């Protein structure tokens, strides 16, 4: 049901999701719920209905999009463009089973290129909790610059946490 959106190459693609993809996505969320809950506010109360609602409210937007590796849905990636400011924030999570293969990093590259070149944005932002080492490593590997720490700006089931802000400017993106 998912529709190809960006081909990343090497068996990896970013797809648009339909509300009917909620069941398949929820299977992946359920087996990752504990680890997602540590960082993401939505994970604690996530059900197939909230997941369907999240997909439905996206419409033609870019959050969430499906990560498809070798034909299987393994996580989501998303962007929230703010054309008025020329900025977009991106976010991502992936099934523990497919971690460590560079899938998120490669998908981020394709999405960032789309944001900078096709949507003509000037900047991309990533925010991650200070001890979310994997998420931060992705930002750093992609060449983002750490710009500050928003004190207790994030919430997840353990409580409030700081958010490290990373930014990348159009001219800094390697082409």
């Amino acid at each position: 049901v998912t529709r190809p959106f960006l081909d990343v190459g090497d068996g990896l693609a970013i797809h648009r999701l339909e509300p009917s993809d909620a069941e398949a996505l929820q299977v992946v969320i359920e087996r990752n719920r504990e680890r997602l809950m540590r960082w993401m506010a939505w994970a604690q109360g996530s059900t197939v209905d909230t997941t369907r609602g999240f997909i439905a409210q996206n419409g033609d937007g870019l959050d969430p999009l499906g990560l498809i590796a070798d034909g299987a849905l393994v996580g989501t990636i998303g962007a929230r463009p703010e054309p008025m400011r020329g900025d977009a924030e991106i976010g991502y999570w992936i099934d523990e089973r497919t971690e460590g293969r560079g899938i998120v990093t490669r998908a981020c590259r394709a999405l960032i290129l789309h944001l900078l070149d096709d949507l003509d944005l000037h900047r991309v932002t990533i925010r991650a909790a200070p001890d979310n080492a994997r998420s931060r490593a992705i930002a750093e590997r992609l060449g983002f610059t750490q710009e500050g720490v928003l004190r207790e700006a994030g919430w997840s089931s353990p409580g409030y946490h700081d958010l490290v802000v990373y930014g990348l400017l159009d001219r800094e993106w390697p082409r």
Partner: protein
Amino acid sequence: MTRLEADLGGGAAIRPYRLEDAEPLWALVDAERERVGRWLAWVRLIRSLEDERRWLEHTTVSDAEENHAIVVDGDVAGGIGLILDPLDANLEIGYWLGSRFEGRGLVTSACRLVLSHAFAEHQAHRVTIAAAVGNTRSRAVAERLGFVLDGVARESTRTDDGFSDLAIYGILDREWNAA
């Protein structure tokens, strides 16, 4: 959640925007376009009375933000708004004021009311203010209110001068309540 209606003293007040504000608001925004547009991205989007009407039609019924007019002797003098957060974790305040109303502490007083409202009514954990780094008046308001500078997001807003760095300030509920 209800928007605020409160007296700021000396003939000034804040109150929810009304659709009838379109003409005076447009007149003020257009007159202040160069000064305010130097720092705030939204000014470029308001190019006509019709744009102003459309924005008022949107914001007066929005569940995602609470925007208010700052009025002096009944005239629209500026605006102050609160961007909400479904989790009440991190709300954001934004404000602007016409030049002839500056220097009386109106924005600082209005911010105090909106901050109290954010922490008391919305149970906000944190409130953010983002200001262009060169916008010293705006930054002085945040600093006067006890906000802490958390970082500078490079070139993260677009103004009439091009892209501008944003100073990001935050204040936590326990810091506000202790002040």
